[in-house]
Structure formats: C-alpha cells, structure tokens
C-alpha cells in the first residue's frame, strides 16, 4: 500500500495543515508518495516542511518516500535554484526531470534551503545572509539600516533552537516575496523547520507539572513563546524568542510556531490568523515562520 501525500498547489504556512493531514498517524505505516506535480508555488516554509517530512521518515527508518516533481518547468527551476532538489535527492526517490541548479540563486532568495546540524552551521548562515540582507531589508523593504543586524539575530536564535532543543538537525531558508492576499506588500520571511522532538517533549520534564491537565503542544508553545521558558535550568535561557518578539513588535512582523498538533502566533494587525490553533494534524518537530513586512513608504516608492 502506498499513501499519497498531495503537495498543495500553493504551499505555504496556511496550506501546511492540509499537507500534514495527509500523513495520517505518525509514523506512517505505508510507503509514501509525495505528489508535487500540481505545485504552482511554494514558500520557503513549504519547501523546508517537505524536507522535514522526508527527514522524519528517514529517521524513523521507514521506506524511502517517493517525490514526484512539479510539472511546471518554472516551478521546477525555482525549486532547483533555491537548492531544494539537492537536499531532497538525499531524502526522497525523485521522480521526474529535475533541472540543474543555477550557480547563484534568484535575487529574492536571501538564503537558499540550508541544513542546520550544528552551531557551526549557524555561524555560516549568519555570515552568508549578512552579504545580501542589507540590500534587501533596507534598500527594498525600507527597514531602518540597522534592521539587518536585528534580522540576523532573529535568524541566529531561530537556528540555534534547532541545535539546542530539537535533538536532530533541521532546515532554514530566507526569502523575500509578495504577500498579495494577506497584506499586499513585500515581506521577508525566515522559515526554520526540524524533525525533532518538538516543544512539548522538549519542555515536558521541567514545565508540564505546572500546567497540569492543560499540558500539551499548545501549552508548551505558550510557555516558550509567551512566558520565555526553556528546558534548561539556567535562568538566562529562553531569551532568544523574547528578543525576536521585541523586533517583530517594532517592525509589525509576525512569528508563528507550529509543533506537534498546535500552532501559536503573535499576530500583527495586517494578518487574520488566530493566536492559537490547536488539534491540528500532527507533524513532527517544530516549524517556525518569521514574517517582516516592507514599510508602507517602501511600497509606495
């Protein structure tokens, strides 16, 4: 038996739950066929979620899943240029012609799909993004000049969470694109995903008791993002997410974290997402999206 997982035509954080729901119970018992033939567009969140699914299946020592590549040449070229197929080939049995990746990624990609396995990778991610971030964040999105550093700090802290808490490796990608339906403006998006133990298991031994029967994926996300707790006893821990929240408040940005069966977001005025979505289809690890919109001045130029 093969279970078919359909990649949504427009694959982003909104359509992710549909994708996660296709897997059924984890770990899936059947061989998986991830069908991306109908994909018309995927955000960095969508692409690294695909890789996370492949990684989770590999780490569960299940049969290597199949992935049928998009029919659209344009979509395939884009996925190749952002580095998706290079990593997907290690996790999936790819079906369909995959174009060769260009030497350099598209100009709106701040960071190709990049694995995060160790602290050394965090250094490299920050080094790499500092070369292009200023041009895009200040020049195109109109953020203040020193926003580049704050953006890199948010990226650094998000990636470190994988190394310190996930118990396995993960993925990061950063891109600029237009949020047509939700905002009508360009946004910079940091997407980080891992196939690890998730927030609930990470925090369970130190914080579950305090929440009593309320303890679950949603309560764990609340503890981490709202209360700034960490699994470490060190009282200085848990400040990375708090710092990111401070920046996002200044930039009218959004952070959304999905782990297990829940998603918690700090929702700015321009978005209509719910703060806490619970009882969602289970998906391994944690997925973080940080969205920073262009200023209105930059959009009206």
């Amino acid at each position, binding site marked *: 038996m093969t279970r078919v997982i359909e990649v949504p035509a427009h694959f982003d954080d909104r359509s992710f739950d549909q994708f996660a729901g296709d897997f059924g119970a984890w770990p899936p018992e059947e061989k998986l066929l991830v069908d991306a033939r109908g994909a018309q567009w995927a955000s960095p969140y969508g692409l690294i979620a695909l890789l996370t699914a492949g990684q989770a299946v590999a780490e569960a020592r299940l049969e290597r899943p199949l992935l049928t590549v998009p029919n659209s040449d344009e979509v395939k070229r884009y996925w190749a240029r952002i580095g998706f197929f290079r990593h997907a080939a290690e996790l999936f049995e790819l079906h369909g012609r995959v174009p060769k990746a260009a030497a350099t990624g598209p100009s709106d990609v701040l960071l190709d799909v990049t694995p995060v396995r160790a*602290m*050394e990778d*965090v*250094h490299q991610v*920050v*080094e790499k993004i*500092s070369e292009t971030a200023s041009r895009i964040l200040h020049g195109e999105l109109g953020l203040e000049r*020193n926003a580049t*550093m*704050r953006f*890199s*700090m948010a990226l*650094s*802290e998000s990636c*470190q969470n994988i190394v*310190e808490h996930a118990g396995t490796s993960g993925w990061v990608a950063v891109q600029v694109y237009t949020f047509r339906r939700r905002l009508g403006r360009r946004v910079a998006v940091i997407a980080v995903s891992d196939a690890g133990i998730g927030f609930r298991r990470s925090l369970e031994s130190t914080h579950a008791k305090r929440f009593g029967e309320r303890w679950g994926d949603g309560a764990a996300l609340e503890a981490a993002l709202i209360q700034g707790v960490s699994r470490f006893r060190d*009282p*200085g821990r848990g*400040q*990375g997410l*708090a*710092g990111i929240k*401070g920046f996002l408040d200044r930039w009218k940005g959004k952070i959304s974290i999905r782990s297990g069966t829940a998603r918690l977001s700090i929702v700015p005025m321009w978005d209509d997402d719910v703060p806490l979505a619970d009882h969602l289809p289970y998906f391994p690890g944690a997925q973080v999206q940080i969205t920073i919109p262009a200023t209105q001045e930059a959009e009206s130029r």
Partner: protein
Amino acid sequence: MIETIRIGHLLRETATSPYRHLVTRPTGAAVRHSIEVALSRSDCLTALLDFSDIELLDFSCAEEIVAKLLLAQASQQPRFVVLRGLRDDQHDAIEQVLTHHGLAVAAMVADGETVLLGFVSGDARAAFTCVCRLGRACAGDVAQALDWPEARATEALESLTHHRLVRPEGDLRYPLLVA
C-alpha cells in the same frame, strides 16, 4: 588601572573559524572564558570591553559574555566592567539579557558619554549621569545637583555602588573610567 580587552581580537583567537559575528552560546562561552583568563592575569580595577570590531552580537552571546561575566564577578575578585563600541542592536541585546537577570553595566557611547544598560531605576540613572558630569560626588552633591532629599540621593548611590556602576572611595563616588 584600566584593562582594555578587544572582543574582536578575542573572537578571532578563540573561535576556530574566522567569523566576525558573535553568535551561538558556545562561541560566547569561549570568548567569556578568554576574558576571564585575561582578567585573571591583570591587577586592573576596571575592565573595558571593546566591541567595536564586532558586527553582530546575538542574545545568546550577550547572555554568555556580558551577563555571565557580571554574574561571575560577584563571586570572583570583583572588577568594574565598562563596555565600549556597541551599536544600537548590540545595546538592545545586552539591555534585554541584563534586565532579565536584574543586572546593569556602564557603556560608553559614540560621543564619549557613558550610559547604563540593564536593570536600573530611574533615580539610579539620574544619579549616575550626575556623578559622570561632576567627575566625583557624594550624596550631598547629588542631592543638591538634582534637587533631591539627601536620603533619595544616598539610596540611588547605594544602588549604583551595589551594581558596581560607580567606584566608591569613602563617601565619594567616581565614574568608572576616571583613573
């Protein structure tokens, strides 16, 4: 005596790779260890940590370097610590981690003025500015300059002294970078 420690130099010596950014906890912990080694070999009263070669300082490194250094000072041979060469975003990171711990540190800003970062009351900040402007001050001097009752000035100076943000000599309090 003031010992100037260039954090950029320490980063290059400490990290195995030639990075310009102070990111990740292990890197921060390694740099803090190097600072502590340098201070253990010095009989200085004040450590001036110069961040001017550093491009990025994330929250983890701010915590590992500045907050933990200040926490360790409480249990070791205590020094006064002053920061220099910080940019706005680095101010933010240090301000947040110190506030979280109830700590504070003095930082020189671009025009040579010294400001406080971290968890400090409004009165203590005002008294600190007053001591820096006067060059040295007792509670009576601060009370007169700020038009406060002397008890209020005494309390503010005690808070600054407790956090090692001014140097005490008898009844007088000195800015940290005055020899």
